[in-house]
């Protein structure tokens, strides 16, 4: 399975070039993510999981985010407080997709929650990936905490928090803006809103008095920007610029990324492909083909390879055992070793 070499610090801080290598890596990871999500949906539809939620439609934004993160454990590295559509970021960081399948099937081997939590609820302390929790927006109240620790610690590690557009109506989003922009202690935090214009079945138009969600950051004198999250190159460049700013200035940045929701909200709404939204993978592939970066054949081959890999992984996971009933008593409290 082609494992993308994780971009290292030197490269990350060098000016982003749209050179072939970058385009190919972006495409590779976007396809890999899409194939993973489609596999998870298939597992749900075949009865190999109770619930699916994930990020098809956000690959063009979530993949560059993972490529640009400083991966590692502790204050010197980036913390990610994500919501439940972040698979592209995890794969871009180099995560093996089989873990997501295990969580989908709630097996004891699920590396993120041991069969306890829903699909897409990643947790990986080894890489500063905070546990995804279902309650909308709470991560925005939590994230300034890791950012405070990083501000005091120094270095260039930053905190990243992501969530959706509808969720910004929760007070926690305001809490994040207030605590990140205190004159007494501005924080090195990249505040991201992935705006797909939906909250389950509720459309954004009737709910948002803001012209742009990013305007809410401006009120706090937080540098803020709205970008096209369906364009992987624009996302890469804008994220790089924003992350460099946060790393160096140790100040907050609010980024609103316009993205798509390609399979509806979750399995609760059927998880069927919707034709009327921009498909970032499709558009990117058309561009790559037109510009002669990759041929249709190469791209199909890549997709087929990932599909086979994941079919194999799914077969493997299918027979793995569920957690034992008495395991509910494990990990209520941490104990001194």
């Amino acid at each position, binding site marked *: 399975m082609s494992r993308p070499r994780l971009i290292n610090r030197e490269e990350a801080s060098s000016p982003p070039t749209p050179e072939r290598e970058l385009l190919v890596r972006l495409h590779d990871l976007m396809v890999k993510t899409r194939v993973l999500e489609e596999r998870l949906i298939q597992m749900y539809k075949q009865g190999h999981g109770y*619930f699916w939620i994930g990020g098809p439609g956000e690959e063009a934004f979530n993949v560059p985010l993972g490529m640009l993160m400083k991966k590692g454990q502790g204050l010197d590295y980036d913390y990610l407080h994500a919501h439940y559509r972040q698979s592209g970021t995890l794969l871009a960081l180099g995560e093996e997709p089989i873990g997501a399948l295990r969580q989908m099937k709630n097996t004891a081997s699920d590396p993120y929650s041991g069969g*306890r939590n829903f699909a897409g609820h990643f947790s990986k302390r080894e890489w500063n990936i905070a546990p995804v929790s279902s309650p909308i927006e709470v991560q925005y109240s939590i994230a300034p905490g890791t950012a405070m620790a990083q501000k005091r610690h120094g270095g260039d590690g930053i905190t990243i928090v992501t969530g959706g557009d509808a969720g910004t109506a929760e*007070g926690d989003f305001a809490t994040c803006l207030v605590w990140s922009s205190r004159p007494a202690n501005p924080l090195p935090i990249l505040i991201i809103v992935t705006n797909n214009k939906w909250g389950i079945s509720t459309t954004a138009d009737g709910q948002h008095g803001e012209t742009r969600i990013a305007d809410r950051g401006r009120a706090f004198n937080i540098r803020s920007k709205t970008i096209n999250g369906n364009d992987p190159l624009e996302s890469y460049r804008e994220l790089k610029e924003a992350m460099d700013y946060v790393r160096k200035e140790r100040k907050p940045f609010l980024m609103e990324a316009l993205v798509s929701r390609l399979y509806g909200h979750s399995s609760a709404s059927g998880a069927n492909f919707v034709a009327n939204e921009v498909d970032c993978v499709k558009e990117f592939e058309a561009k790559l083909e037109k510009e002669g970066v990759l041929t249709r054949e190469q791209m199909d081959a890549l997709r087929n390879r990932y599909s086979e890999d994941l079919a194999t992984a799914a077969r493997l996971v299918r027979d793995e055992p569920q957690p034992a009933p008495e395991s509910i008593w494990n990990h209520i409290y941490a104990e001194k070793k």
Partner: protein
Amino acid sequence: MANMAQAIRMALHYAEENLGVMDIYGEDVGPPLGGVFTATQGLKTAWNSPLDERGIIGTAIGLAMAGQRPVAEIQFADYIFNTIDLLKIAGNTLWSSNGDWNLPMVVKTPVGSGIRGSLYHSHSFDATATHIPGWKIVIPSNPLDAYGLMLAACQELNPVMFLEPKALLRVKGEERIPGEPDDDKQLSKMIDAPLGDRSAWKPQWPSLERYEVPIGKGKVVREGTQVTVVSYGRTLPLCAKAADTLREQGVSAEIIDLRTLWPYDWELIKGSIEKTGRVLFVNEDTEVTNFGEHLVRRTVDELFYKLLAPPRLLAGKFVPGIGLADSLEMASVPQLNDITEALRKLASEEP
């Protein structure tokens, strides 16, 4: 027969037509979805709120101050825990203003396990709700009670918490709701929103009749002589089932559906315990500082010397969440077999 979601929908239709309800709202409560459990489909006053539980409860208080009889929904009780301060305010506004401002409002929210909801679609709310003074709290276990309790709630002068057992929302009833058509295929055609595009759809409401289940009244659903079981919500039908099984084995259990958690029907409970001398309280909230423990305390306070065995509580395990895997959910909250065994043991317990 209608299922509980349809029963609640019909009750809310009756309430917006006849009881002055003008706002049925919450996240995804309005069109096109009509609620994640379809309980608010086709209602003319249903609308979609921002994704903000504090705003939902806060504005419900404001609407009630303005005499609007709001019915506000929290999509899952799992997401009500950032509003406890506001719920306390709703419960203390009349008292703190020494009788000046009463708040006629209903908050409805699905509770409990049973749909493989994992950590955040399985929460119970009965323990937390019963610790908040100033509210009336109801929880139906069948469609007809859901209809009757919602009609009663929508006529209250005080805040009412309407808890909806998730696992029972799609279960059909055994008793007809007054006005409900005989054939439930027909009912579904009339009031269930179609799949696909709903923009043109309008429900055809049956001509429903007024039917109320008085707040504060429980109900004996199985008569018995040897042991009393007090339950509500998801576990109530399981308790009835367990009683039926045990009856064949010569154990006679009386099953009480509490229906209202506050103010609850103590006279009914007391009378039954005085008869049986044994009582099992069953609910699925976590078992530490649990409402069932209040009922145990009341029992020993008033009936200690009449008891033949210690009053028992069967409730959810005190763990941080209900895990997604079948094995985990089964091990965390009472299942039919747990109830049958607890009952059998209690019925035959000797010092």
